[in-house]
């Protein structure tokens, strides 16, 4: 059995709430639930550092200063705490900060929790809160929404690559199929290609199945430095072998080539390089699928498909659970549900569950290497992590 690498950074506990409309549960209660689960997996370990990933709380809950709010509410007063915001990449960005802090040697333990509460305000207010992640002066002022931006992106993608109208259907079909066996998923009904083809338009050409549902949720990940791993952990810890972030233009119209995500490509490349691995070594990819066009572009940016052919992986079974490169193994944003700034940590938690062999009916057999990536805006921010399972159960 491999020994932990002393300067390695390990995930020793994860916790997730189901994603959904949690009328009864507030922002701080959601965070607490995920934190308690993660800490319990590590014998109640108390972290020195706390990073809270969130993008909408000031606008939708009238609450900022979340680092201290969560530390206080979760019995962690005294921890070094702060909020990390990078739009939809908040979760991955928060993990990156925790990773950097532990790698610096200044601390030994860190808890990263993503939490989002979107159901306390009406839809038009949620749309304008989401729009703050765009260029306020040159995109949001014209009434652009996340959905409309994804629709513009999708239409151009299909046009430039000569792809059929249902090219992106496979992402939704795969996600829904995987969620059937995930008891915590928001939508657990499988859909067929006909459902996609007949689906109502949300913002043409983007239909109902091209867009993930945004709802409430929290996910937490507990990190410990390799030379400080507590004994007797119930699940062998997972190592973060690669961690990288990058930025591109903020506005979609400012990207040098709107159909190429340089931040996603760069951060994925660096994460793989740090781990000494190639794309073909990756056994599952928790990619950003808030909209189906993101998923196609993410596959292309990470090097799994040529430009304009990411959608084909969704059509030919490559990304299915039994395929060569499973994605959204628990349903992804599309079917498990999208919890805004917390989504990046749902991705990490689910990847850990896979690598530790705990995925039950959703298990990717023999998975040892997982790539996890979340995006902010139209690829303006990308946070990518490469997780490897070297330690086995004793």
């Amino acid at each position, binding site marked *: 059995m491999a020994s932990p690498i002393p300067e390695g950074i390990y995930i020793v506990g994860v916790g997730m709430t189901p994603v959904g409309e949690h009328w009864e549960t507030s922002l701080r209660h959601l965070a607490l639930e995920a934190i308690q689960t993660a800490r319990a997996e590590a014998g109640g370990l108390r972290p020195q550092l706390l990073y809270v990933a969130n993008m909408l709380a000031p606008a939708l809950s009238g609450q900022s200063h979340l680092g201290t709010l969560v530390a206080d509410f979760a019995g962690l007063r005294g921890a070094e705490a702060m909020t990390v915001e990078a739009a939809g990449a908040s979760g991955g960005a928060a993990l990156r900060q925790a990773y950097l802090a532990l790698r610096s040697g200044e601390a030994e333990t860190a808890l990263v929790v993503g939490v989002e509460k979107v159901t306390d305000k009406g839809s038009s207010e949620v749309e304008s809160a989401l729009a703050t992640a765009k260029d306020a002066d040159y995109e949001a002022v014209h009434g652009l929404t996340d959905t409309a931006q994804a629709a513009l992106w999708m239409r151009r993608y299909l046009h430039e690559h000569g792809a059929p109208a249902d090219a992106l259907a496979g992402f939704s079909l795969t996600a829904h199929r995987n969620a059937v066996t995930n008891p915590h998923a928001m939508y657990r009904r499988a859909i067929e290609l006909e459902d996609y083809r007949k689906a109502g338009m949300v913002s043409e050409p983007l239909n109902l199945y091209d867009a993930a549902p945004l709802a409430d949720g929290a996910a937490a990940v507990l990190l410990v430095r390799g030379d400080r791993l507590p004994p007797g952990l119930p699940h062998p810890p997972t190592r973060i072998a690669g961690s990288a972030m990058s930025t591109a233009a903020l506005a*979609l119209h400012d990207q040098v080539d*709107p159909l190429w995500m340089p931040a996603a490509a760069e951060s994925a490349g660096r994460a793989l390089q740090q781990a000494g691995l190639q794309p073909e070594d990756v056994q599952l990819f928790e990619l950003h699928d808030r909209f189906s066009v993101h998923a196609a572009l993410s596959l292309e940016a990470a090097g799994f498909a040529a430009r304009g052919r990411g959608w084909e992986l969704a059509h030919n079974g490559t990304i299915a659970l039994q395929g060569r490169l499973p994605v959204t193994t628990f349903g992804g944003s599309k079917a498990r549900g999208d919890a805004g700034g917390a989504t990046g940590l749902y991705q990490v938690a689910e990847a850990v569950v896979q690598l530790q062999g705990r995925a039950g009916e959703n298990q990717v057999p023999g998975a040892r290497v997982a790539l996890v990536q979340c995006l902010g805006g139209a690829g303006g921010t990308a946070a990518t992590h490469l997780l490897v399972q070297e330690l086995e159960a004793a």
Partner: protein
Amino acid sequence: METSRHWRLRQQRYALVGEVCPSCEQRIFPPRDLCPDCGEEARELYQFSGRGEVYSFTTVYQAPAGFEQEAPYPMAMVRLEEGPLVTAQLTDLGDRAVQIGMPVEMVTRKLRADGERGMLVYGYKFRPLLNGKS
């Protein structure tokens, strides 16, 4: 009320005034003072012609706060003939179907009212070319 924020941008908004980079001659919109291409300082104002073509388009049905009363409205990314891509609403379509590549021209329209009592915000939208200059 966001008076000064909108006021600062009036030249860009009303008339599509951007910048031209003195080093690499890139036409820049919106103006950003540092050329996104070569990284040099670029503060020389440049008046765009307003002509361009549709790069992509869609319709917004679920509007953000402040835009509900205009919904549904058409949105597009437009490739200006000088090079930059901009995001804006389309207007004056009539019964015309929009297509990628359709030539369009800039018009100055009311973007929104800042609430019932706030200022009126004007800015650029794009419409299909008017036929027949006399």
